[in-house]
């Protein structure tokens, strides 16, 4: 009897696909706890690999940046396997910051890319208001036929777990320390950045990321600007970079940016103009993944840090 029930559950259970691209790395704990608590069967697309990238490149509009193409690849990999595909439409970030317009139009881009019209969860998500997040989750609950009180309980637990998780990297005990700037999906996607952090470690270079600089310190650095920046990634990287240079805790900056990124085109230039003479390496990544080129440049940068220390 139990076996039959189990089988029945398997047949009728709804599978939700979670693409592992873009801000998945930031909200991994939240998503996983939430789904586990509700016992929703979910399929996670694997970590990014060559196959996923190729799929993404073939179904994404060619002007988009590398992370967008990777996300399309993840969605395409899940397309056949799941009943519901979760594509977040992030309209505002936690402190009312804006995000790249492509995030707001992500569902439309993906849906037209992978030719899927039904079974896609595309509600807008305003992360700056708790009420809106709850509203968003309630709507998903309605789609999946889950009771509201269960959703709220799972939400509470997921938020707690998310808060407990320590974001970002702050290495210690290396010969050099650098600030590694960039968007989280470029920093933590080991395929997209060709295992950059590991490579840096092998040259004796430790890494600090923007998450480890407090919001107050970032705010103080962006105060002198004429206008408060509205992009999350601009504010974080510019504020953190400037603070760390002033603080003199770092030997250099490496900024990893995807080709034709609109936000980085401004962030990098502003940072470069404001820090004066300071070692600053910009690594551009795109779908052609020329690893040898990246290696040479990191090596040269490491050599330069070494020479700077000696003289």
């Amino acid at each position: 009897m139990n076996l039959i029930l189990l089988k029945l559950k398997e047949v009728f259970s709804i599978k939700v696909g979670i693409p592992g691209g873009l801000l998945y790395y930031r909200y991994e704990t939240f998503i996983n706890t939430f789904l586990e608590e509700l016992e929703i069967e979910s399929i996670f697309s694997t970590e990014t690999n060559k196959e996923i990238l190729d799929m993404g490149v073939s179904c994404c509009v060619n002007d988009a940046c590398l992370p967008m193409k990777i996300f399309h690849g993840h969605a395409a990999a899940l397309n056949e396997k799941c009943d519901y595909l979760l594509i977040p439409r992030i309209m505002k970030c936690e402190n009312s910051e804006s995000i790249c317009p492509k995030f707001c139009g992500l569902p439309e881009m993906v849906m037209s890319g992978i030719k899927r019209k039904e079974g896609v969860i595309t509600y807008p998500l305003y992360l700056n208001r708790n009420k809106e997040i709850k509203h968003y989750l309630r709507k998903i609950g309605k789609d999946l036929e889950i009771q509201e009180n269960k959703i709220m309980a799972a939400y509470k637990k997921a938020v707690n777990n998310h808060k407990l998780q320590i974001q970002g990297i702050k290495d210690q005990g290396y010969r050099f320390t650098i600030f590694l700037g960039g968007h989280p999906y470029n920093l933590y996607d080991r395929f997209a950045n060709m295992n950059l952090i590991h490579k840096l470690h092998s040259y004796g270079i430790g890494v600090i990321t923007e998450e480890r600089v407090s919001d107050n310190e970032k705010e103080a650095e962006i105060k002198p600007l004429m206008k408060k920046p509205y992009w999350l990634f601009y504010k974080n990287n510019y504020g953190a970079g400037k603070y760390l240079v002033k603080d003199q805790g770092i030997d250099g900056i490496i900024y990893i940016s995807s080709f034709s990124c609109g936000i980085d085109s401004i962030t990098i230039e502003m940072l470069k103009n404001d820090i004066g003479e300071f070692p600053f390496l910009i690594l551009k990544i795109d779908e052609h993944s020329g690893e040898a080129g990246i290696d040479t440049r990191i090596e040269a940068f490491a050599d330069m840090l070494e020479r700077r220390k000696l003289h």
Partner: protein
Amino acid sequence: MKITFPHLGDAYIAINLLCKEMDVACVIPPLNNMETLEKGSKYSPEEICLPFKLMVGNLMTAIDNGADTVVMVSSAGPCRLGEYGDLLKSILDKNGYYAHWILLDTVHDVGVRELLKRVGSIWGGEKRSRLKLLRAFKGVYKVIKSLESLETEIHRLSAYEVEKGKLKKILYKCKGDVYSSEGIQMAQKIIEKSQKQMTQVEIDKSKDPVKVVLTGEIFSLIEPFSNQYLEDKLMEMGVSFFRRITIGWWLDITLVQPLKRAKAMKKKNAFLNYCVGGYAKDTVEEVIQAKKDHCDGVIQLLPLGCMPEIVAKSIMPDMSEELDIKILTVVFDEMNGEAGYITRIEAFIDMLQRRKKYVLYGY
């Protein structure tokens, strides 16, 4: 105090009139040309969009010509325009072009009082009656609106004219005259005169030209240099075309009728329901409207890397299929390969003409 501003299509005509009316000295940078672009590309970051590069060129020339205050529109949308201000200042300062900066944000973001304060600071603290400004603004708004209605009509009619090029000449003469006119009343008279001239041009109603809608990113659309003078070429090719996005339209949605705009933003359509920044949603709506108006095709223009328009572009294949309308997307950058653009646009127009003549015959 001498103010200056970056070029945005025909905005310089309106701002010139407004400054004359308010007795403010202003330095208008030379119209966008190759020199502007070269100067701009040299000092701007590589990956920023084309409008920014042109603006850097504009402002550098203007400051060389004696301007000391830059007035710049701004926004808080997720598009890059809102962050232009600080980056422009940082680049100009770095290269020794110092100026005082006034950023005009929208009322929605900074509130009416702050905006009025900033507008007031253009006169260097001197107290002038806001009523005078309001009256001047109203007059200039009327001028720009009637100039645009003349332009729209000429875009539509130029495909029908018997002797090619007459309407185009009227349009450019009118624009030049309005620019050099003494005041609002004189400008109105010039436009009325041109309107009369336009109606006297002989047209051949039996012609059946292809009808095209121009849409896409606002700067590429209304700044002729950035789209390689596309409109002139379309007029020469004998295409009847329509472009809704103009300075007047922009004034409408940001200053004159913001409430109507807010209502329009909530309107749903089958393809893109949310404002993703910039005017991507409007681009999508334009295409739907073009189908309703029985147009033959749509040309979408965008500068390389424009974030909102990429979203619109990715929906275009779907729209083209479902609505059965032909769409050409043209991406502009500073490389200026004019021949490449002409070939593609000509091929698109040829295709539309053939389709109209053979495929859709009898529909």
